[in-house]
Protein backbone atom coordinates (compact mmCIF):
# COMPACT_ATOMS: atom_id res chain seq x y z
CA UNK A 1 0.00 0.00 0.00
CA UNK A 2 1.33 3.44 -0.89
CA UNK A 3 2.30 5.74 1.92
CA UNK A 4 -1.02 7.44 2.60
CA UNK A 5 0.69 10.64 3.64
CA UNK A 6 1.75 11.06 0.06
CA UNK A 7 -1.48 10.08 -1.61
CA UNK A 8 -2.03 12.20 -4.68
CA UNK A 9 -4.58 14.90 -5.23
CA UNK A 10 -7.45 14.06 -7.56
CA UNK A 11 -6.68 13.40 -11.20
CA UNK A 12 -7.42 16.83 -12.56
CA UNK A 13 -5.85 18.58 -9.60
CA UNK A 14 -9.33 19.02 -8.18
CA UNK A 15 -10.46 17.59 -4.89
CA UNK A 16 -10.10 13.87 -4.58
CA UNK A 17 -12.76 12.09 -2.63
CA UNK A 18 -12.60 8.98 -0.58
CA UNK A 19 -11.14 8.21 2.79
CA UNK A 20 -7.70 9.34 3.63
CA UNK A 21 -7.31 11.43 0.57
CA UNK A 22 -5.87 14.81 0.76
CA UNK A 23 -8.32 17.61 0.10
CA UNK A 24 -7.17 19.82 -2.72
CA UNK A 25 -6.19 22.82 -0.65
CA UNK A 26 -3.84 21.06 1.74
CA UNK A 27 -0.21 20.24 1.07
CA UNK A 28 0.01 17.09 3.17
CA UNK A 29 -2.08 14.78 5.28
CA UNK A 30 -0.26 15.96 8.37
CA UNK A 31 -1.27 19.51 7.66
CA UNK A 32 -4.82 18.36 7.09
CA UNK A 33 -4.84 16.43 10.36
CA UNK A 34 -3.32 19.36 12.28
CA UNK A 35 -6.03 21.62 10.93
CA UNK A 36 -8.82 19.26 12.00
CA UNK A 37 -7.52 18.80 15.48
CA UNK A 38 -6.82 22.49 15.99
CA UNK A 39 -10.30 23.28 14.72
CA UNK A 40 -11.86 20.74 17.05
CA UNK A 41 -10.08 22.06 20.10
CA UNK A 42 -11.07 25.61 19.25
CA UNK A 43 -14.61 24.41 18.97
CA UNK A 44 -14.36 22.84 22.41
CA UNK A 45 -13.13 26.17 23.75
CA UNK A 46 -16.27 27.79 22.43
CA UNK A 47 -18.19 25.07 24.25
CA UNK A 48 -16.37 25.87 27.48
CA UNK A 49 -17.52 29.46 27.24
CA UNK A 50 -20.98 28.44 26.10
CA UNK A 51 -21.55 26.34 29.21
CA UNK A 52 -19.48 28.91 31.09
CA UNK A 53 -22.30 31.44 30.92
CA UNK A 54 -24.58 29.05 32.80
CA UNK A 55 -21.87 28.17 35.29
CA UNK A 56 -21.45 31.86 36.00
CA UNK A 57 -25.14 32.29 36.70
CA UNK A 58 -25.06 29.22 38.91
CA UNK A 59 -22.04 30.49 40.83
CA UNK A 60 -23.49 33.91 41.47
CA UNK A 61 -26.84 32.64 42.69
CA UNK A 62 -25.39 29.86 44.76
CA UNK A 63 -23.09 32.38 46.38
CA UNK A 64 -26.07 34.64 47.02
CA UNK A 65 -28.41 31.94 48.36
CA UNK A 66 -26.22 29.17 49.77
CA UNK A 67 -28.83 27.78 52.15
CA UNK A 68 -31.64 27.69 49.65
CA UNK A 69 -29.43 26.02 47.07
CA UNK A 70 -28.31 23.39 49.55
CA UNK A 71 -31.88 22.75 50.53
CA UNK A 72 -33.12 22.54 46.97
CA UNK A 73 -30.30 20.21 45.99
CA UNK A 74 -31.63 17.67 48.47
CA UNK A 75 -34.61 17.12 46.21
CA UNK A 76 -32.30 15.45 43.73
CA UNK A 77 -32.02 11.68 43.62
CA UNK A 78 -28.38 10.99 44.45
CA UNK A 79 -28.58 7.33 43.51
CA UNK A 80 -29.77 8.12 40.02
CA UNK A 81 -27.22 10.93 39.71
CA UNK A 82 -24.33 8.72 40.77
CA UNK A 83 -25.48 5.93 38.51
CA UNK A 84 -25.65 8.30 35.60
CA UNK A 85 -22.18 9.60 36.34
CA UNK A 86 -20.87 6.06 36.25
CA UNK A 87 -22.75 5.38 33.03
CA UNK A 88 -21.14 8.35 31.37
CA UNK A 89 -17.70 7.38 32.59
CA UNK A 90 -18.10 3.90 31.16
CA UNK A 91 -19.23 5.44 27.89
CA UNK A 92 -16.08 7.54 27.85
CA UNK A 93 -14.03 4.38 28.20
CA UNK A 94 -15.83 2.67 25.34
CA UNK A 95 -15.45 5.79 23.23
CA UNK A 96 -11.73 5.92 23.94
CA UNK A 97 -11.55 2.26 22.99
CA UNK A 98 -13.36 2.94 19.72
CA UNK A 99 -10.76 5.56 18.84
CA UNK A 100 -8.03 3.19 19.95
CA UNK A 101 -9.35 0.37 17.78
CA UNK A 102 -9.41 2.66 14.80
CA UNK A 103 -5.90 3.93 15.41
CA UNK A 104 -4.51 0.45 16.02
CA UNK A 105 -6.08 -0.74 12.81
CA UNK A 106 -8.48 -3.17 14.49
CA UNK A 107 -11.31 -2.18 12.29
CA UNK A 108 -13.66 -4.93 13.38
CA UNK A 109 -13.77 -3.56 16.92
CA UNK A 110 -14.75 -0.01 15.96
CA UNK A 111 -18.45 -0.66 15.53
CA UNK A 112 -18.95 -2.70 18.73
CA UNK A 113 -17.31 0.01 20.81
CA UNK A 114 -19.25 2.77 19.10
CA UNK A 115 -22.46 0.84 19.61
CA UNK A 116 -21.66 0.31 23.29
CA UNK A 117 -21.04 4.04 23.66
CA UNK A 118 -24.36 4.81 22.06
CA UNK A 119 -26.14 2.34 24.27
CA UNK A 120 -24.65 3.91 27.38
CA UNK A 121 -25.46 7.39 26.12
CA UNK A 122 -29.06 6.35 25.60
CA UNK A 123 -29.16 4.83 29.07
CA UNK A 124 -27.99 8.13 30.49
CA UNK A 125 -30.74 9.98 28.68
CA UNK A 126 -33.29 7.41 29.82
CA UNK A 127 -32.34 7.85 33.47
CA UNK A 128 -32.37 11.61 32.98
CA UNK A 129 -35.88 11.35 31.57
CA UNK A 130 -37.01 9.39 34.63
CA UNK A 131 -35.59 12.09 36.86
CA UNK A 132 -37.27 14.85 34.87
CA UNK A 133 -40.61 13.09 35.09
CA UNK A 134 -40.26 12.77 38.85
CA UNK A 135 -39.39 16.46 39.23
CA UNK A 136 -42.28 17.53 37.11
CA UNK A 137 -44.63 15.24 38.99
CA UNK A 138 -43.49 16.88 42.21
CA UNK A 139 -44.10 20.37 40.83
CA UNK A 140 -40.44 21.19 40.74
CA UNK A 141 -40.47 22.55 37.20
CA UNK A 142 -40.26 26.37 37.46
CA UNK A 143 -43.13 28.54 36.40
CA UNK A 144 -46.74 28.86 37.50
CA UNK A 145 -46.95 25.20 38.59
CA UNK A 146 -43.88 25.32 40.73
CA UNK A 147 -44.54 24.33 44.30
CA UNK A 148 -41.65 23.95 46.67
CA UNK A 149 -42.07 21.16 49.22
CA UNK A 150 -39.29 22.42 51.51
CA UNK A 151 -39.23 25.42 53.86
CA UNK A 152 -41.11 28.26 52.21
CA UNK A 153 -38.43 30.77 53.08
CA UNK A 154 -36.29 29.07 50.45
CA UNK A 155 -39.06 28.68 47.91
CA UNK A 156 -38.13 31.46 45.52
CA UNK A 157 -34.35 30.95 45.35
CA UNK A 158 -35.08 27.23 45.12
CA UNK A 159 -37.03 27.98 42.00
CA UNK A 160 -33.88 29.68 40.71
CA UNK A 161 -32.00 26.51 41.53
CA UNK A 162 -34.43 24.42 39.56
CA UNK A 163 -34.34 26.86 36.67
CA UNK A 164 -30.61 26.38 36.56
CA UNK A 165 -30.93 22.65 37.03
CA UNK A 166 -33.20 22.31 34.04
CA UNK A 167 -31.25 24.75 31.91
CA UNK A 168 -27.88 23.15 32.61
CA UNK A 169 -28.86 19.50 32.45
CA UNK A 170 -31.13 20.25 29.51
CA UNK A 171 -28.31 21.84 27.55
CA UNK A 172 -26.09 18.94 28.52
CA UNK A 173 -28.70 16.43 27.40
CA UNK A 174 -29.02 18.27 24.11
CA UNK A 175 -25.31 17.81 23.61
CA UNK A 176 -25.72 14.12 24.35
CA UNK A 177 -28.42 13.83 21.73
CA UNK A 178 -26.21 15.55 19.18
CA UNK A 179 -23.39 13.22 20.20
CA UNK A 180 -25.59 10.20 19.60
CA UNK A 181 -26.40 11.56 16.16
CA UNK A 182 -22.72 11.94 15.36
CA UNK A 183 -21.96 8.44 16.60
CA UNK A 184 -24.63 6.92 14.41
CA UNK A 185 -23.05 8.59 11.39
CA UNK A 186 -19.74 7.09 12.44
CA UNK A 187 -21.29 3.64 12.68
CA UNK A 188 -22.71 3.92 9.19
CA UNK A 189 -19.41 5.13 7.78
CA UNK A 190 -17.46 2.42 9.57
CA UNK A 191 -19.70 -0.20 8.06
CA UNK A 192 -18.78 1.20 4.69
CA UNK A 193 -15.16 0.73 5.66
CA UNK A 194 -14.31 4.41 5.52
CA UNK A 195 -11.88 4.43 8.41
CA UNK A 196 -8.42 2.95 8.42
CA UNK A 197 -5.51 2.90 10.80
CA UNK A 198 -4.07 5.84 8.89
CA UNK A 199 -7.20 7.87 8.49
CA UNK A 200 -9.88 7.98 11.14
CA UNK A 201 -9.99 11.66 11.96
CA UNK A 202 -13.80 11.80 12.33
CA UNK A 203 -13.74 9.11 15.01
CA UNK A 204 -11.01 10.91 16.88
CA UNK A 205 -12.75 14.26 16.71
CA UNK A 206 -16.08 12.81 17.78
CA UNK A 207 -14.25 11.17 20.66
CA UNK A 208 -13.02 14.55 21.83
CA UNK A 209 -16.54 15.87 21.71
CA UNK A 210 -17.92 12.94 23.65
CA UNK A 211 -15.29 13.27 26.37
CA UNK A 212 -15.97 16.97 26.63
CA UNK A 213 -19.65 16.35 27.23
CA UNK A 214 -18.62 13.86 29.89
CA UNK A 215 -16.47 16.49 31.58
CA UNK A 216 -19.36 18.92 31.72
CA UNK A 217 -21.33 16.30 33.58
CA UNK A 218 -18.42 15.65 35.92
CA UNK A 219 -18.92 19.22 37.13
CA UNK A 220 -22.69 19.29 36.97
CA UNK A 221 -23.01 16.25 39.18
CA UNK A 222 -21.45 17.60 42.40
CA UNK A 223 -22.79 21.11 41.81
CA UNK A 224 -26.38 20.02 41.40
CA UNK A 225 -26.75 16.79 43.36
CA UNK A 226 -24.34 16.92 46.22
CA UNK A 227 -24.28 20.37 47.76
CA UNK A 228 -26.84 19.89 50.51
CA UNK A 229 -26.15 16.36 51.61
CA UNK A 230 -24.25 17.01 54.79
CA UNK A 231 -26.88 19.36 56.21
CA UNK A 232 -29.48 17.35 58.03
Amino acid at each position, binding site marked *: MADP*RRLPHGEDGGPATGPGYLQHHF*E*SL*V*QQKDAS*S*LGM*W*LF*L*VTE*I*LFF*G*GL*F*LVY*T*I*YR*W*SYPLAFADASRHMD*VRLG*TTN*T*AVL*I*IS*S*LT*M*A*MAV*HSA*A*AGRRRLIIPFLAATMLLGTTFLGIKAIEYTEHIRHHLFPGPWFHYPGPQIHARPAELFFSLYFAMTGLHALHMVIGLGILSVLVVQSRRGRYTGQWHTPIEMS*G*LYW*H*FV*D*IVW*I*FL*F*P*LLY*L*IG*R*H*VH
Partner: protein
Amino acid sequence: MNQTEIQARESLHPEHIVSPKSYVAVFLALLVLTATTTLVAFVDLGPWNTVVALGIAFIKATLVVLIFMHIRWSSNLTRIIIVGGLFWLAILLALTFSDFATRGWLPILRMRP
Protein backbone atom coordinates in the same frame (compact mmCIF):
# COMPACT_ATOMS: atom_id res chain seq x y z
CA MET B 1 5.62 24.46 5.00
CA ASN B 2 8.11 22.77 2.76
CA GLN B 3 8.78 19.09 2.34
CA THR B 4 11.69 18.80 4.75
CA GLU B 5 9.74 20.64 7.44
CA ILE B 6 6.84 18.29 6.92
CA GLN B 7 9.03 15.25 7.16
CA ALA B 8 10.70 16.60 10.26
CA ARG B 9 7.32 17.04 11.90
CA GLU B 10 6.13 13.62 10.92
CA SER B 11 9.04 12.00 12.62
CA LEU B 12 8.59 14.26 15.64
CA HIS B 13 4.90 13.57 16.11
CA PRO B 14 4.15 10.04 15.20
CA GLU B 15 0.60 9.29 16.16
CA HIS B 16 0.59 8.11 19.71
CA ILE B 17 -1.26 4.91 20.40
CA VAL B 18 -2.17 4.69 24.05
CA SER B 19 -2.39 1.21 25.45
CA PRO B 20 -5.83 0.08 26.58
CA LYS B 21 -4.35 -0.57 29.99
CA SER B 22 -3.93 3.14 30.68
CA TYR B 23 -7.50 3.70 29.59
CA VAL B 24 -8.77 1.10 31.99
CA ALA B 25 -6.63 2.51 34.79
CA VAL B 26 -8.02 5.98 34.23
CA PHE B 27 -11.49 4.56 34.05
CA LEU B 28 -11.11 2.82 37.40
CA ALA B 29 -9.68 5.99 38.94
CA LEU B 30 -12.68 7.91 37.67
CA LEU B 31 -15.09 5.43 39.23
CA VAL B 32 -13.27 5.55 42.56
CA LEU B 33 -13.28 9.33 42.51
CA THR B 34 -16.99 9.39 41.74
CA ALA B 35 -17.67 7.13 44.70
CA THR B 36 -15.44 9.27 46.90
CA THR B 37 -17.09 12.53 45.97
CA THR B 38 -20.54 11.08 46.62
CA LEU B 39 -19.58 9.64 49.98
CA VAL B 40 -17.70 12.70 51.15
CA ALA B 41 -20.72 14.80 50.34
CA PHE B 42 -22.56 13.15 53.23
CA VAL B 43 -19.86 14.10 55.72
CA ASP B 44 -20.05 17.58 57.16
CA LEU B 45 -16.82 19.39 56.38
CA GLY B 46 -18.27 22.88 56.59
CA PRO B 47 -17.08 25.08 53.75
CA TRP B 48 -14.64 22.37 52.69
CA ASN B 49 -17.39 20.24 51.19
CA THR B 50 -17.50 22.49 48.17
CA VAL B 51 -13.74 22.65 47.91
CA VAL B 52 -13.41 18.88 48.01
CA ALA B 53 -16.24 18.36 45.53
CA LEU B 54 -14.76 20.80 43.05
CA GLY B 55 -11.24 19.52 43.63
CA ILE B 56 -12.28 15.97 42.82
CA ALA B 57 -14.19 17.18 39.77
CA PHE B 58 -11.06 18.97 38.57
CA ILE B 59 -8.94 15.86 39.05
CA LYS B 60 -11.45 13.78 37.13
CA ALA B 61 -11.64 16.31 34.33
CA THR B 62 -7.86 16.49 34.14
CA LEU B 63 -7.59 12.73 33.86
CA VAL B 64 -10.09 12.67 31.03
CA VAL B 65 -8.34 15.50 29.22
CA LEU B 66 -4.86 14.11 29.64
CA ILE B 67 -5.47 10.47 28.80
CA PHE B 68 -8.79 10.02 27.04
CA MET B 69 -8.32 13.19 25.04
CA HIS B 70 -4.61 12.57 24.49
CA ILE B 71 -3.40 15.92 25.71
CA ARG B 72 -0.46 14.26 27.39
CA TRP B 73 0.90 13.53 23.94
CA SER B 74 -0.29 16.60 22.08
CA SER B 75 1.33 19.80 20.90
CA ASN B 76 1.88 22.87 23.03
CA LEU B 77 -0.49 24.82 20.86
CA THR B 78 -3.36 22.55 21.86
CA ARG B 79 -2.48 22.95 25.51
CA ILE B 80 -2.35 26.72 25.18
CA ILE B 81 -5.77 26.66 23.59
CA ILE B 82 -7.28 24.72 26.49
CA VAL B 83 -5.63 26.83 29.15
CA GLY B 84 -6.66 29.93 27.23
CA GLY B 85 -10.28 28.83 27.15
CA LEU B 86 -10.29 28.20 30.87
CA PHE B 87 -8.55 31.50 31.49
CA TRP B 88 -11.26 33.35 29.60
CA LEU B 89 -13.87 31.60 31.67
CA ALA B 90 -11.94 32.74 34.73
CA ILE B 91 -12.05 36.33 33.47
CA LEU B 92 -15.80 36.08 33.12
CA LEU B 93 -16.18 34.72 36.64
CA ALA B 94 -13.64 36.97 38.33
CA LEU B 95 -14.73 40.31 36.94
CA THR B 96 -18.39 39.53 37.47
CA PHE B 97 -17.54 38.66 41.03
CA SER B 98 -15.77 41.97 41.42
CA ASP B 99 -19.28 43.38 41.22
CA PHE B 100 -21.26 40.93 43.33
CA ALA B 101 -18.62 40.49 46.00
CA THR B 102 -18.24 44.22 46.63
CA ARG B 103 -21.89 45.24 46.56
CA GLY B 104 -22.30 45.15 50.29
CA TRP B 105 -19.26 47.27 50.95
CA LEU B 106 -20.89 50.62 50.54
CA PRO B 107 -23.36 50.88 53.41
CA ILE B 108 -26.03 52.79 51.50
CA LEU B 109 -26.19 50.34 48.64
CA ARG B 110 -26.72 46.93 50.14
CA MET B 111 -28.18 45.48 47.02
CA ARG B 112 -27.50 41.83 47.04
CA PRO B 113 -29.98 40.22 44.71
